[in-house]
């Protein structure tokens, strides 16, 4: 069950990143920082013995606060950088991810305020408690014992559901159409009155918001936060989950997240070659199926611009759907 909960945290975060990468088409290599900021907000307000803020509001407030802090960070990092395109954005976000980690590392009271206890992080985060329901205890549901991890599992399931809902509804709206238009031809989109900068910023903020939410739950489930949980490799894994599963799809990204989180557990004996294997897998994917395991129609078209037959086939499906 512990693996299942970590898969769900990973999946929720990957779905959030999917809005940024899959829908708006922005490459974000520092996304894990938003998960981290949510987790740190939850940790500092958890009432742990090591927490630096004494205030312990109800959990729903913490979730919203964590999400808002992450979204604010997203806006701060997004507003100057979204004017640059493609590769530059990737580098800036990569830098942001590292800055976040070092900031958490150094906010230990030696230089500036003590917020995060530096490298020690904040351990001893108490179990989630909503009303009289403690997530650490085993509860009985219709005679079936629901253990600690199962409690978190169901909360995370709700969270993943929420993220999917937001993802799909934004995708099928005026905003989603704007995002596709930006991916297709940014200049033409701007010339047709689409608010290119605003929509990119929105994608960034919504993605960060959702990651912040996931982070608040993750802090309680892990019981501790420390800077070394939020390294660049985690951002890379999130991105790999999206690329492997299929950018812009729901099923694909869930599948990709599951594969990337389960495989290392099942391949422990293989641990030294794990990264090598992932790298190889991604290279092969890029070569033979760039649209991912579960392809979205639109992405398939974008990746195969020369393929006339594919376009005709997808078009006839669209015509069928319309009838």
């Amino acid at each position, binding site marked *: 069950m512990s693996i299942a909960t970590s898969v769900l945290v990973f999946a929720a975060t990957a779905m959030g990143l999917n809005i940024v990468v899959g829908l708006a088409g922005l490459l974000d290599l520092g996304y894990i920082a938003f998960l981290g900021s949510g987790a740190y907000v939850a940790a500092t307000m958890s009432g742990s013995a090591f927490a630096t803020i004494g205030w312990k509001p109800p959990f729903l407030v913490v979730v919203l606060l964590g999400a808002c802090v992450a979204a604010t960070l997203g806006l701060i990092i997004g507003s100057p950088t979204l004017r640059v395109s493609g590769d530059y954005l990737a580098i800036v976000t990569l830098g942001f991810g590292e800055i976040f980690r070092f900031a958490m590392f150094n906010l230990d009271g030696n230089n500036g305020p003590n917020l995060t206890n530096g490298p020690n992080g904040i351990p001893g985060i108490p179990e989630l408690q909503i009303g009289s329901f403690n997530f650490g205890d085993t509860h009985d549901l219709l005679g079936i014992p629901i253990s600690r991890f199962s409690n978190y599992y169901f909360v995370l399931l709700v969270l993943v559901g929420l993220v999917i809902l937001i993802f799909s509804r934004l995708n099928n709206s005026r905003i989603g159409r704007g995002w596709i238009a930006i991916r297709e031809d940014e200049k033409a989109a*701007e010339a047709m*009155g689409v608010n290119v900068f605003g929509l990119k910023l929105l994608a960034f903020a919504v993605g960060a918001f959702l990651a912040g939410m996931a982070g608040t739950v993750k802090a309680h489930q892990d019981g501790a936060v420390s800077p070394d949980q939020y390294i660049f490799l985690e951002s890379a894994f999130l991105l790999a989950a999206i690329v492997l599963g299929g950018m812009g799809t729901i099923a694909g990204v869930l599948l990709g997240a599951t594969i990337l989180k389960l495989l290392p557990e099942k391949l422990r004996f293989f641990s030294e070659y794990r990264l090598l294997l992932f790298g190889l897998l991604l290279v092969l994917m890029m070569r033979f199926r760039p649209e991912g395991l579960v392809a979205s129609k639109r992405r398939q*078209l974008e990746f195969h611009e020369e393929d006339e037959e594919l376009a005709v086939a997808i078009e006839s499906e669209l015509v069928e759907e319309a009838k």
Partner: protein
Amino acid sequence: MTVTDAVPSTAPTFGQPVLEASGVTMRFGGLLAVSEVNLTVREGEIVGLIGPNGAGKTTFFNCLTGLYKPTSGEVRLSGTPLPPKPRAVVRAGMARTFQNIRLFANMTALENVMVGRYCRTSSGAITSVLRGPKFRREEAATRARAQELLDFVGLGKSSEHLARNMPYGDQRRLEIARALATDPKLVLLDEPTAGMNPQETRQASDLIFKIRDSGLSVVVIEHDMRFIFNLCDRVLCLVRGEALVEGTPAEVQSDPRVIEAYIGTGEDDDDDEPAGVRDVVREEDQS
């Protein structure tokens, strides 16, 4: 610099000026692409913009629509100065098409036109997620209006077709529909008949008249002289970034400077010469 001829003769038949561009100049480093060009377009008027390749027609369009920030000069739409930002220009009521078609290739025809409605709708992120009544109302209205515009340009049956699979002429018409979706007062068409056969060209010309009859003003860049002289109320000829002649089609057609600009001194590449002018010149010779 050649002084632009004023044309009071056609002015009274049209309404208020919609577009007033004065002294528009665009300089790229040492290259003066557009120099002090003035253009006034009135309500319900079709104005043609002609000139040899490289005369600065498209650059002038880009200056008008905010894709380029003019080095100097001012563009006013219905009296208000336009900022050089494409989005603000569209909101103010001026839409355009592109010389090299820039549709959203992997979207359907209907979706392309729906993107054009973006600046006239306002559903935000929250109402889109909650699917509130405003969202549903606006989404239905957007879809209906987009379909209506596709019908208007004669693509009503191809709404679910992918833009990239459509025949060339249909792509041009789809681009016009997308521009019309922004509810403009004025549309700028950059070579709407490039690469079309005579029948398609005739349809395009009918479509432009239809747009004009619906109360809009139109500015057309074209190389096909027969097309432009049949279509336009007034024609402006640009040569090397400068306004050479402005007047009624008849005036421009018979102006020796225009003919000289097109035929040149023999240096011009033959491919660049539009057939229309050559015919015009031949007719001149015979008379």
